[in-house]
């Protein structure tokens, strides 16, 4: 790394080297049985330079030819975007725990046993279910070094377990599943198995809903499925600085339900989305996005913050060593005061939605979501009566989050990047076969 930086400084005003390496060991089950063991090791190095005020960028998995990496970055810099930021100097980073040495020491045999036990527990409820499951451990290091003396490095461990079951009866297919991830080893999976069993129970009977407008409860998974993408785009500093977010210029305005608070947090210990530093070496923080319904902030990296006249929120991320870009780490929606059961009891006719497919294919920038209900239940007179199918729901986050009926009293992590309670929406457009 030092060598790349030295070579780059010879030809550019500023330079930054980003090195990421990881080792991952997943265990995979298919059709209820162990199928594959994997070991993946990868390393990549990226170079960002500022030459004549412009940004050049290159990346490679080959560590043997630093000069080639520098040459590629120089070639692109002649056409590059104007650098509006300064790389960070030496910083103090917050103490955030994201590495647990116990992850590495979990034996492969134990991971195999866990996967088997998880599948067996679910199968004991529904023997004809066909399950895929995965248990994986991984460990990685990130190291950032720049020409202004900035340097950040950390180790991170990661453990994940998940199950997906398919139940086929005639031409009817039911998909159920749960997953969990952490920087600590996960030892307890019974709760996950029981959640899958509950899905199987609730989906046992078919139910239908007519075309029309109905109240809808989004479970935490339902919130992710329907709302996460349009929300994450709306608060992304990149979308904001180009004026494409509907929230542009609305900072300080009350646009959402007064009980709704949303923030992004990269500082929660042992959360898979946490880290002491972002991918540009800016210290991590918690950033308020919606506070009591008021638009409170946006997520920036160095370049977008400079354009917006703001400060980086430590939100720079790089997909596989690519260019940094602002991105959510873990979104958290604050808990309300209504138990899930009370929400159900309140509905005369409506839906509970766990999972949509295709919801992210519409005008997500405009806040819209429209998807087929992959897993969802009909509520009649305060009770869940069965599973709905061949049903589409459509809405817009700027309408539905304006006036919520209630916010759930129990928030849950969904996939390591969102923690949310159930949300009870007054009305969504429903279209169904019938």
């Amino acid at each position: 790394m030092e060598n790349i930086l030295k070579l780059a400084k010879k030809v550019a005003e500023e330079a930054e080297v980003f090195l990421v390496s990881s080792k991952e060991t997943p265990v995979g089950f298919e059709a209820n049985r162990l199928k594959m063991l994997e070991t993946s090791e990868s390393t990549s190095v990226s170079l960002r330079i500022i030459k004549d005020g412009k940004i050049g960028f290159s990346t490679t998995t080959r560590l043997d030819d630093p000069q080639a990496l520098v040459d590629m970055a120089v070639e692109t810099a002649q056409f590059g975007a104007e650098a509006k930021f300064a790389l960070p100097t030496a910083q103090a980073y917050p103490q955030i725990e994201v590495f647990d040495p116990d992850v590495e020491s979990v034996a492969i045999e134990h991971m195999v046993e866990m996967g088997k036990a998880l599948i067996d527990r679910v199968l004991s409820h529904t023997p004809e279910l066909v399950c895929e499951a995965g248990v994986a451990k991984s460990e990685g290091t990130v190291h950032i070094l720049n020409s202004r003396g900035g340097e950040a490095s950390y180790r991170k461990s990661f453990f994940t377990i998940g199950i997906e079951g398919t139940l086929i009866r005639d031409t009817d297919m039911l998909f159920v599943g749960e997953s969990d991830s952490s920087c600590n080893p996960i030892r307890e999976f019974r709760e996950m198995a029981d959640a899958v069993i509950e899905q199987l129970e609730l989906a046992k009977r078919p139910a239908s809903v007519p075309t029309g407008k109905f109240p809808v409860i989004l479970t935490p998974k339902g919130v992710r499925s329907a709302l996460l993408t349009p929300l994450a785009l709306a608060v992304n500093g990149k979308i904001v600085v180009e004026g494409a977010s509907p929230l542009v210029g609305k900072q300080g305005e009350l646009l959402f339900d007064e009980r709704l608070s949303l923030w992004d947090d990269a500082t929660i210990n042992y959360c898979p989305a946490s880290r002491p530093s972002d991918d540009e070496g800016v210290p991590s923080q918690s950033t308020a996005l919606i506070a009591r319904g008021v638009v409170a902030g946006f997520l920036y990296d160095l370049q977008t913050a400079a354009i917006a006249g703001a400060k980086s929120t430590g939100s720079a991320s790089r997909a596989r060593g690519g260019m940094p870009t602002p991105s959510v780490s873990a979104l958290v929606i604050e808990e309300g005061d209504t138990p899930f059961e009370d929400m159900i009891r309140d509905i005369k006719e409506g839906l509970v939605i766990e999972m949509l497919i295709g919801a992210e294919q519409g005008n997500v920038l405009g806040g819209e979501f429209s998807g087929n209900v992959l897993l969802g239940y009909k509520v009649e007179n305060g009770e869940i009566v069965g599973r709905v199918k061949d049903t589409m729901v459509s809405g817009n986050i700027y309408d539905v989050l304006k006036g919520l009926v209630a916010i759930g009293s129990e928030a849950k992590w969904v996939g390591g990047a969102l923690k949310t309670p159930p949300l009870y929406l007054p009305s969504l457009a429903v279209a169904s076969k019938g």
Partner: protein
Amino acid sequence: MAGIDEIRQQIHDALKGQDSDYIEVRIEEREASRIQYRGRELEDIGRSTSLGGNARALVKGGWGFVSFNELSGLREKVALAVKQARLVGRGRAGEFEKGEESKLSPVAPVVDVVAPKIKKDPGAVPLARKKGLLDEYNEIIWDTPKIQTSVIAYGDSRRSVIFANSEGSYIKQTKVDLSVRLMVIARQDGDVQQVALSMGSSDDFGFVEGLHQEVKEAAQRAVALLSAPQFKGGEYTVVLDPVLAGVFAHEAFGHLSESDFVYKNDRLKDIMVLGRRFGGKHLNIVDGAAIPGLRGSYKYDDEGVPATRTYLIKEGVLVGRLHSRQTAAKMGEEPTGNARALNYRHPPIVRMTNTLIEPQNVSFEEMIADIKEGVYVKNWYGGMTSMEMFTFSAGEAYMIRNGRVEELLRPVVLTGNVFTTLENIDAIGNDLEMNQGGGCGKGAQSPLPVSNGSPHIRIQKCLVGGR
């Protein structure tokens, strides 16, 4: 470090004497460049290179897979894959009295070098020219009033893969891939509307050079959407243009034909039994990498199996499916050369290549003539499937009234159920077109270059979302 060409002997040595039913090694070298505009600003211009590989081994029905960037110590990496496979094989054997046999469909070993057939090589086009073209398109976008911002993303890559297995195959294939994505965003007051285009090629930079008209129309349409009415959801007669009908073929049926999903589920095998009727006599759906010159085309798949052209549905009846060597062996069918891996970090899985609905003889005018109230949907925005139920979203939607295409609507998402929607196709056009903009995702492997195509088709009673 040794380049990809000096590696044949190393692979040979690494495979020798390993105690496994089957082993394969893939080594991959890739060079790519990309340019991305966001609004008026060039956001990202970069180049990348990568070199990596993997070893996959099969022992008593269990697989081991090891991927790496560092090519040295190849023999130890292969040995690790074998060790893992043995562990899985033993774990599986524990569930049975005698253990299990490894089953792979027999394929003759191949030694071959496949060079790409390129009309105009993106690798030979200077970065300045690529950027210049994007500048031209950006000018067109910014000449359109009410445009808030836009994204133009260009990417090209050249990828060489060496495949060798313990049966004596040694294949080197080189492929080029090109893609252009465009998104135009219009805004008025709080309303934001977007239009996206996605295009690609496997052999011709020339296609990137003539997009001026398409770009102009996309920009104008984004603005027009600001004043387009909301659509009321429900069941409608819909007519799909060739691009969207191609996505429909891919989502509605293609994924269900991937037999890695079918082979392990006995109930599904009963449903997907060859000979089952899914649609009318006019319906033929084909997939094949042997169809030349498209983004999903190749000579050998990532298990070294020669590409084919496979009828999935012929005259409305299920007649075939897509296989890897393992799924073909387990189902007692012929391998089709559809095992593909996104890159060296992943094992090959069953994937589509070029998927299409074959043309019939109905003209577009005939197709819409007797529709009293319906929707004409064009262009691709996205698609997704859960196998039984699928969604696909249209880039453009228009009302059809009394046989005429009328006003532009806000974008719509359509949904269907594979067991009823294919039957509801009641007209297939005569104007087959292939769309090369697709990138298919399955598991963690996305986006894989594929192409889809179809003539115009009409579907009765299709569920369309709306507010």
